């Protein structure tokens, strides 16, 4: 072969350019198509689609929260949904940011102080187990029924080695009535002294 051929040896040794044979579609692929088509129809039909058209960016957190049934309030579920982000599932809180619930003097003492914290929240300095925290706790008085506050209070007072007595809805109702004039969060630990 010539010198020119040697530059193109790679091209010369190749197979022909590819092409295709014409055959009917395999039966298996027909089955796959039929099965997936059926799946698609069933899946669309089974999925709830008629959700409000206004759902979009206008939704707020409350729209998506599961409806809360007050009659059978579940303290553990309420805690998992509302408290765990700050106080942690371990009840130890986050050092320097969120106070612990485990072993907290506010939970192992009189029921009133637990109820009042949940009803109105706290904004200001509070000392728990020797550490001082300067944060903010939201109030649950408006969002939770008496039974729900009682359930979550009883839950946190009985977990992680806490030995606080159980609280019922009637006690919460009494506490709510007692402080109905309070419109702002409690100003830290000092405001709470009178309920301890």
């Amino acid at each position, binding site marked *: 072969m010539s010198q020119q051929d040697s530059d193109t040896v790679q091209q010369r*040794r190749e*197979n022909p*350019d590819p*092409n*295709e044979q*014409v055959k009917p*579609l395999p039966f298996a692929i027909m089955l796959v198509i039929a099965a997936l088509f059926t799946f*698609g129809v069933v899946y669309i039909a089974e999925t709830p689609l008629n959700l409000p058209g206004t759902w979009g960016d206008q939704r707020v957190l409350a729209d998506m929260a599961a409806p809360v049934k007050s009659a059978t309030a579940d303290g553990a579920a309420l805690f998992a949904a509302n408290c765990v982000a700050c106080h942690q599932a371990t009840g130890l809180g986050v050092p320097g940011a969120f106070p612990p619930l485990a072993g907290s003097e506010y939970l192992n003492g009189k029921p009133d102080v637990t109820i009042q914290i949940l009803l109105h929240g706290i904004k200001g300095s509070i000392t728990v187990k020797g550490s001082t925290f300067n944060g903010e706790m939201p109030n649950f008085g408006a969002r939770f029924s008496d039974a729900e506050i009682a359930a979550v209070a009883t839950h946190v007072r009985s977990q992680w080695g806490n030995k606080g007595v159980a609280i019922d809805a009637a006690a919460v109702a009494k506490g709510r009535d007692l402080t109905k004039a309070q419109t702002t969060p409690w100003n830290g630990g000092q405001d709470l002294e009178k309920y301890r």
Partner: protein
Amino acid sequence: MNALGMLLSAFVIAILGLMFFIWSNGRSLLTGGEEAASEIFSAGEVGLVEDPAGTPASRTRLQSSSTGHAQVGQHVDEADILARIESDKSTSLIVLIMMTAAVFWLLLASTFGLISSIKLHQPDWLTGSMWLGFGVTRTIHLNAVAYGWAPMACLSSCIWILPRLLKTPLRSGRWAILGGAIWNISLLAGLIAIATGYNSGLEWLEIPLPIATGMVVGGAMVGIPLLDTLGHRRTRHLYVSVWYMSAALFWFPVLLIVAKMPVHVGIEQATANWWFGHNVLGLFYTPLSLATIYYLLPKIIGRPIENYNLSLLGFWTLAFFYGQVGGHHLEGSPAPAWLITLSIVQSMMMIIPVAAFTINQHMTMRGHFRMWVHSPTLRFILIGGMMYTLSSLQGSFEALRSINTVTHFTHFTVAHAHLGLYGFVTMVMFGAFYFILPRVRGWEWPYPWAIQLHFWLVVLGFGLYFTALTIGGVLQGLAMLDASKPFIDSVTVTRPWLIGRSIGGGMMTLGHVVFAVHVLAMVFKLGPKRHTQALFWRDAMPPGLAPNLATQPEGAAS
């Protein structure tokens, strides 16, 4: 009519219409396709088997399967070889430039990927400067792969293959060189912008709008010669690779322009973002890689593609379904339920094109799997093809709400993305480089052992990468779903798996360095001048292959 009725009827009508369209194509009701498909079988082509693992029996099968095909090696149709040589000459410069650029981006992207990976388990490493923060290194990794390595490799393969299939030289190739230059400069500018903290804040679309405009212009200029060549083709029938390539060249600019238009806000923005993010994989890298497999696989084993009708089904269903699947990234978001449901269903429908391709590839390969021992190209593209099947099936099921609940927002998704873009696209492109570069340079790969080393480093490295990250991702997802565990548990549980990922990623990066050095040797024709193609295990080749190896053109020795 309610949303359910509208969605259901639209789905049923669309699928029936699509199937009728594909059926009519196969029956040549719209074109003369069927007859054109068989007449392409050219009489008596060159017969030296490129990857000489074919047995005499396979060659007999090849002949019996195509009427009019002369005894292999007996009659050489010189005109076809000259057309091929002419095509290769017209594309060699641009392909060489783009492949070199691709390898540069591959190295850069691997480096930044590895840095990001290590940072996930050594968070205090390299924290001195802003541009070495995780948020930047990961973004640079993503963009260097998505707009550097993958498109440069895919486009160079496309530019090299299209003129060959159209039996004509590449026309107005200068546009592609200029376009490629603009693209690469824009990408470099985009990465610098990202490193200095100037980005659009949307994943996959981080490069700021003014710079992205340069990429759109550059990409369009690369498309000009391919369209021009398509218009001046000398064949009647368009081979399946041509469909995928021309469609991808049309889809990509549409995707980028629409997604980059500064008109999307709120939930629409997220929808457009993921419509783009998923489609750039499915409607750009995937078709170009599939086109490369559809060309190289039959080329190497010397058999025609098994079934034209499967190719048709695969192409049109991919084209139809893929554009609608991006919404599955928004499960759990406030996007409308019908949109997400449609995306999930169409994600599952993607099993159709995947099954069509897989059956086609398997039936074409049947009886020839031994060849993968010897041929580097076949090794990479076969693995790539298998990973396409795997990643697509995984993606389809991952879209289901029941599985997405666990895997969303975990490393599982990252593993899946790499199965597609690395296991599939990158592997196929490695194979394409090993096949194309010797023809571009007229020079054989100097070190076959380096190909072996590259192969095992990236395959084992990626195996480790994928396995570790998948397991870590599932554990992370389960920990996040468990309300009794604090969030930090879902982070710490992944640590050993992230270290495993870094080791795998390190092996892959090492493999890329081997590959890059080898490519550099090719570009400058360094190393020993070899006279035979780079194949593995010659000693173990079946005796039937010996004549082919002996038939080296004498001119090569001069």
